[in-house]
């Protein structure tokens, strides 16, 4: 049932060059093995050869010489994870643009217009975030965005 007309249609459009270059794949596999092996060997050597004299104080996290206080996992401010959300949005955009980049000449001006609209819409997103202050990280960011002092009273 997977061999519906849709598949043959796709196949006609998509089949083309040779599927897998075995020698290149093998070379990459060998290289990966070498790299991973070497790095693991270095870490193993470090664990075996290293000097050993552990004291409880040595295993404390470093806090400029004083005893560590409180939890290491501080609850962070929101903007940091918003960066990751915006990154996903614009990364997906980049994926579309890059897919277009290698065929821009075959698609011609029609493809260009299409991409211009695509990028234009995302410029709207960037513009909105810019205006709303989502891209501000400075100490004066809160004032610009909300008109009120962010830190006052905290």
């Amino acid at each position: 049932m997977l061999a519906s007309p849709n598949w043959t249609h796709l196949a006609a459009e998509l089949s083309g060059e040779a599927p897998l270059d075995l020698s290149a794949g093998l070379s990459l596999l060998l290289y990966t093995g070498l790299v991973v092996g070497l790095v693991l060997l270095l870490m193993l050597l470090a664990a075996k050869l290293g000097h050993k004299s552990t004291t409880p104080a040595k295993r404390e996290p470093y806090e400029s010489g004083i005893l560590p206080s409180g939890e290491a996992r501080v609850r962070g401010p929101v903007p940091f994870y918003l960066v990751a959300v915006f990154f996903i949005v614009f990364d997906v955009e980049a994926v579309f643009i890059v897919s277009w980049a290698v065929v821009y000449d075959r698609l011609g001006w029609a493809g260009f217009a299409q991409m211009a609209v695509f990028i234009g819409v995302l410029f709207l997103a960037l513009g909105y975030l810019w205006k709303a202050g989502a891209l501000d990280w400075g100490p004066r960011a809160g004032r610009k965005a909300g008109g009120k002092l962010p830190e006052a009273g905290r």
Partner: protein
Amino acid sequence: MSTVIFYVLSATALVATLLCVTRKQAVHAIVYLINALFALALMFYLLGAPLVAAWEVIIYAGAIMVLFLFIVMMFELDPAREAQRPAPARRWPVVLISAVILACSLALAFADPAGQAGVPGYYASPRAFGELMFGEYALGVEVASFLLLFAAVGAYTVGRGDEPAGGGEGRR
């Protein structure tokens, strides 16, 4: 040769996914999920879709997992505390959807036990892929741009909450 690699990769993906859903520590779960996604990407490459493989790594393993990691790193409270379990009433949609997906997969598997249909061994070169996507599915691409616009605006509106925008790193 490629059949052997395929089975090795699918075993990796399955084991990594199983380990992912059984971990208590969220960061460990994310690490296993990255492994599973990477194995899936290699499978796409084997199936003749190099571009999809690359996007799988760049978007899923490289962007969405980064977001998960970010959130876990910043909002995780005490790692020793028992993870909060959702109330039974909120579980049944998940169970229902999973059951439907399982039923569909089983039906597909039994309809074609010898695995004759499958995906034919075609190869989608990046240029052919791009031409198809921006030619035939041009409208979809434009719709995607609007979806992304809404996603960005929505994420900001929801994520900002009642905090003043851009509290800065120094705040405690």
